[in-house]
């Protein structure tokens, strides 16, 4: 019940079961895209003047959360959870703002790659601490969130810095065609270049196996520690992309800019059909869910709902959707 285009793995066997499996694994992922389309229609109704500009704004505003959701999903799929994603984004945000402020496109890309490599290492370290200490993920990542936040404050205590290269920030803010923002292409490219090979690899299979049943995976010869560490490293990669996307959106470094993203990423993951117990779900669902969460906010904006109530309604919608999905899943099991 997850990724829509990414799923089919090489199974040259009986098609009936493949179809059943595909449906079972993708029904949620497909429905969240249905919800997304539905909400776009609703938005068009409440705001008839909806045009490419509004769509692009939506994409720009959603990209940080989309990547944060992917970071969270990487970790949740293996059976963990990462409460430090927002603070990791903040750290990336301020480090990026410091080094990118006077950089041209080439330098900016190099610096970004260095930052991504750095957060991958930080993620791997987090995973290492979790596997070695056997302290639950939720506690270790809560602790690391303070570390990342402290480091971010150390780098930049008040908002500042920025992005020197407009070509670089246009990766988030730019557009290729009228209805085709560059951000959509970037997200799709990341899914294709980073997630798809991972999903198809033995490592990806091990991640799903471990999240599904740790004992069975261990008995199947899965390298438990290695796989968990790798999942956290991948989470670090996505968290860096999220932080950089946030930087490109705001064009300013701010250590306090990203604290909401941790729990929003969890919401997107749950809404995107990833089981919090691990082993079930994919990446396309959470990405769509990130869009859904932001579009709800946009619709409220157009309806001129008091922003305070808007947050309440947004939360209620998440609960309702998850409740609905849970009842459907339960009914199928019994």
């Amino acid at each position, binding site marked *: 019940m997850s990724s829509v285009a990414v799923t089919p*793995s090489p*199974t040259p066997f*009986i098609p009936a079961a493949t179809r059943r499996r595909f449906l079972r694994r993708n029904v949620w992922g497909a429905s969240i895209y249905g919800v997304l389309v539905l909400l776009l229609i609703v938005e068009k109704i409440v705001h008839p003047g909806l045009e490419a500009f509004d769509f692009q704004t939506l994409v720009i505003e959603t990209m940080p959360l989309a990547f944060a959701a992917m970071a969270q999903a990487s970790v949740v799929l293996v059976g963990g959870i990462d409460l430090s994603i927002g603070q990791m984004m903040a750290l990336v945000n301020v480090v990026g703002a410091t080094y990118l402020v006077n950089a041209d496109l080439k330098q900016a890309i190099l610096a970004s790659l260095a930052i991504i490599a750095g957060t991958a290492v930080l993620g791997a370290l987090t995973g290492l601490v979790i596997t070695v200490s056997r302290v639950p993920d939720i506690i270790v990542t809560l602790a690391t969130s303070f570390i990342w936040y402290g480091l971010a404050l150390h780098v930049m205590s008040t908002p500042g810095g920025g992005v020197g290269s407009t070509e670089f920030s246009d990766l988030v803010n730019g557009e290729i065609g009228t209805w085709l923002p560059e951000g959509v292409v970037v997200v799709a490219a990341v899914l294709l270049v980073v997630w798809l090979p991972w999903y198809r690899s*033995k490592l990806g299979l091990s991640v799903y196996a471990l999240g599904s049943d740790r*004992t069975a995976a261990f008995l199947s*010869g899965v*390298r438990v520690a290695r796989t968990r560490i790798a999942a956290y490293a991948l989470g670090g990669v996505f968290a860096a992309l999220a932080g950089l996307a946030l930087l490109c959106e705001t064009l300013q470094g701010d250590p306090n800019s990203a604290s909401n993203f941790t729990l929003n990423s969890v919401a997107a993951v749950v809404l995107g059909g990833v089981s919090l117990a691990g082993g079930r779900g994919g990446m396309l669902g959470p990405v769509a869910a990130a869009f859904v969460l932001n579009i709800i906010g946009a619709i409220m904006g157009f309806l001129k709902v008091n922003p305070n109530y808007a947050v309440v309604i947004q939360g209620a919608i998440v609960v309702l959707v998850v409740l609905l999905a849970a009842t459907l899943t339960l009914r199928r099991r019994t």
Partner: protein
Amino acid sequence: MSLLVVRDLARRFGAVVALRSANLAVEPGEIHALLGANGAGKSTLVKILTGVIRPDSGTISLNDRVQDFHTPSQAQRAGIAAVFQDPALVPDLTLAENLRLTDVDATAVRRWLELMELAVDFGEIVADMPLAVLRMLDLARALAREPQILILDEITAALPSDLAERVFLVMREWRERGHAVLFITHRLREVRAVCDRATVLRDGHDVGTLIPSEAGEAAIVDLMLGPAAQGMPGQAAVVDRAAIGGGPRSDTLVLEARDISVGTEVHGVSLAIRAGEIVGVAALEGQGQEELFDALAGRRRRDAGQMLVEGRTLDPRTPFDAIHAGVVLVPADRVQALLPQRSVRENIALPLHNEVREWGPINVPKEGSRIGDAIRRLQIDTRAQRQARRLSGGNQQKVTIARWIANGFKALLLFDPTRGIDVGTKRQIHLLLRQLAGEGAAILFFTSELAEVQLACDRVLVMYEGRFVAEMPAADADEAALLHAMHGLVGTEGAA
């Protein structure tokens, strides 16, 4: 030259010594049984042999080379493949993905499945398959690894007899090819039928190796239970049913079901159990027995029919409702029923809190005395009582029964309670059931081990495709008659 030699293997878990000093030699081309009562150390030995845990001391050698396994994959590479009690297939992956995960060749698996006459869809998600099939798949996967030693840990415990026969077929095939099988089971008849030699463990030691076909079941049981148990009730090898006594004590109907239907699994089943009566249920895997028990115990809503407890209608929505009305369930999966991290006492006291006092603090002395009684009555081994998960399987099952004894009940539903439990504990449980019945309880008892029907029950209902197709008094319910009925080979329609 022995294929596998185990010398002085020892392992402790905290204060509990699971394995003291175990020795074992397995030759190529033999089926070797590993026997022992619950807690004798069989599972620990298997886990060490398969690299799941490491021993504190002692050695394992394979083909005269000393091995030190740190992970299951190392043991697999060295030529040891195992099928564990719980199938080691990852539930959310398809079978094909599971095979890819373990680097096992799908064609080889397919060949073994063909030999076992099983048609399986490799694209199906494992969680959607029935447990019995998963065991066979696990077996086929283990064989496809071409192990020198195939370890089967209680593989037949939850298998219907026709599938068990196919397992034996494959075991013999593996022996013919010059490899070895290490077979762990509690069913002594299976040992005599398929095993060439048997090593018996007791209290973490190996206490003897014998040839089952020559030694006989009685000798094996004596070895398993040891001299300490001689003369104690509950150790006898061949249970004399007359000694148990039995039969309904009164005509009061305690539990009655009329035309109960559940989903597509149970179709209009009726039964009536009197006070003091133990009614057996026999069926092949998946004939609706599980759904019937779940419906009676309030774990699942029935779709049609009526249920009466002492003449009063009961429509349990949850187990809480059923327990309040006095209908309690002992499931096969002990871990499902227990709080594994909590103490034995707390586990027994759990449903008590429903009744003793709804509000306010728990009456500790009163609770304590009732629990103490239950523990003594069931002879629960409380060495590891701080955490229920550390108990052996047999003792865990005793705790789930003790819970209901402390709580009190009218009708007791037991769903395969003795699965994977040694003969001594089984015998204790049979005696206990008889005592409980004597005190006026009505007992419904499903068992996958047909011999138990005659040992413990007054009469038996045979279920086939969601219906009771036969009823017979225990005296007539020998295995041949039961098997016949369980496969639906009876002329009469409906029963009970």
